[in-house]
């Protein structure tokens, strides 16, 4: 790795560390934008995946489901494609590339599409529908286990007029993601995927971020333009989901406490 590139990677990590936990969504978008710029890619996706208690018999991915999907750039077309994929997954209709990726569940892994599937896969409908038609020709998928039941995934995409990822490009992307487990943990927490029993609603996530910024409930209500009573209800519902009874205990989860 040239020293110039490693400087860029270090700057990217430093920038993440400079964001406060209440701005983890912005931090994620900036990270994905920087990662694309560094890796010469056009789009990126983050997925928070969890293993559900119930998996049906023969479930090829043993109960693992993507719970939150965040894209750097999106279009209605991409949204529809992701929605479709998610529905198929729910029905147990899982594409080969995802099954192969999940073979390594529980370990850190980085794969290009062609590390996962053979040449014939690129002739099939799945690739045409969910890659080519949304403007992506190649992808690197990086999966980081956060605990036994939660994984953080990044997909980095090259467009139709960009060359496919080389092995060394894949390894560099892997290296960048490998260094930010602490951040991926925060991301999972802030989506309610790590400790909370139920994922958070969008409003709860807004309230959560204000809680993490240390704002009083009165100020949170003002920011949300809601009554104190409504804001307090939302705060209480967040505490319930995380199984805590006050703010200090909630914030302690972000500082690594295990309930």
């Amino acid at each position, binding site marked *: 790795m040239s020293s110039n590139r490693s400087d860029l990677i*270090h700057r990217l*990590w*430093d920038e*993440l*560390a*400079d*964001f*406060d*936990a*209440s*701005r983890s969504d912005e931090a994620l978008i900036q990270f994905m934008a920087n990662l694309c710029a560094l890796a010469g890619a056009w789009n990126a996706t983050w997925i928070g995946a969890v293993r559900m208690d119930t998996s049906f018999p023969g479930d090829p991915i043993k109960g693992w489901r993507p719970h939150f999907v965040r894209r750097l750039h999106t279009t209605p077309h991409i949204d529809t494609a992701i929605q479709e994929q998610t529905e198929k997954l729910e029905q147990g209709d899982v594409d080969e590339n995802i099954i192969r990726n999940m073979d390594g569940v529980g370990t850190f892994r980085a794969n290009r599409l062609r590390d996962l599937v053979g040449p014939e896969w690129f002739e099939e409908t799945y690739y045409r529908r969910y890659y080519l038609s949304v403007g992506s020709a190649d992808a690197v998928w990086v999966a980081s286990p956060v605990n036994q039941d939660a994984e953080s995934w990044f997909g980095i995409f090259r467009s139709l007029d960009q060359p496919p990822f080389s092995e060394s490009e894949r390894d560099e992307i892997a*290296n960048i993601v*490998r*260094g930010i*487990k*602490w*951040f991926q*943990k925060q991301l999972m927490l802030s989506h309610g995927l790590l400790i909370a029993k139920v994922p958070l609603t969008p409003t709860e996530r807004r309230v959560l971020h204000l*809680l*993490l*910024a*240390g*704002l*009083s409930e009165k100020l949170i209500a003002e920011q949300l333009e809601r009554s104190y009573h409504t804001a307090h209800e939302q705060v209480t519902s967040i505490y319930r989901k995380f199984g*805590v009874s*006050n*703010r*200090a*205990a*909630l*914030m*302690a*989860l*972000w*500082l*690594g*406490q295990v309930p």
Partner: protein
Amino acid sequence: MTPATQEKIHDIWDELSDFEASQSDQAVALLMKSLCNLANAWNATWGGAVRMDGEHNNDLLQGWRVSAMIQLHPVAPDPDEGLFKEILQLWDRREIDPSFLLPMRSVGTFRTYSFRRELSPEWFESPFYKYHYGSVGTCDAVFIGFPLNQDAESHFGFYSRKTFTDEEVELFSYALRGIKWFHRQRMLSHGLLAAATPLTPTERRVLHLLLTGLPEKQIAEQLERSYHTTHEWIMSIYRKFGVNNRAALMALWLGQTS
């Protein structure tokens, strides 16, 4: 550095991220110990450096002082009042040894500096080297400085019975360059970032209990002190960090700037 070594360092980073903020001292000990093993060092130190207010025109050390210091292995003969402490006293009295000037080069940038690479062969004949380093078998030392802002830096030192190889120096540098979030927590937990005054050892114990989210009553029980005394300590910590309550204190650890 081989990919295998790099992977070992990434595993250490993972382990660090699994520690609670309240276990910052255990985390730093694990980091120092792991890196000593990987690079054949016999001891390690962490120092939190801050620059004092005021004009420093005539000060070769530009107002910098080491406000907190941790050593992996306490050094004989007197572990508490050990050799490192004496060095810091000389530093504070500005009885300047050439080795004190090494960290001043490129202050404010991430940097690595070491004895054998940067000091003259004569220095290793000096009474200063022989007393403070040679006597305990340290042949070479390498330091890694990580600036958090203009007035605060986190410095790691590693000590070896032989001259560090380039690969070993590179290993330290790689391992410590990628974890700004951890350097930040280190400084915070000693009251060297965001706080007006460094924390006392008791305040640090209380602080770490505050970060676990425990109610004040239980913190008092853990400390075996009265609620009143404990509350006083907590108030003093809040004052030093310039916050009014626990949520605002914890928000500092989550990256809020006061």
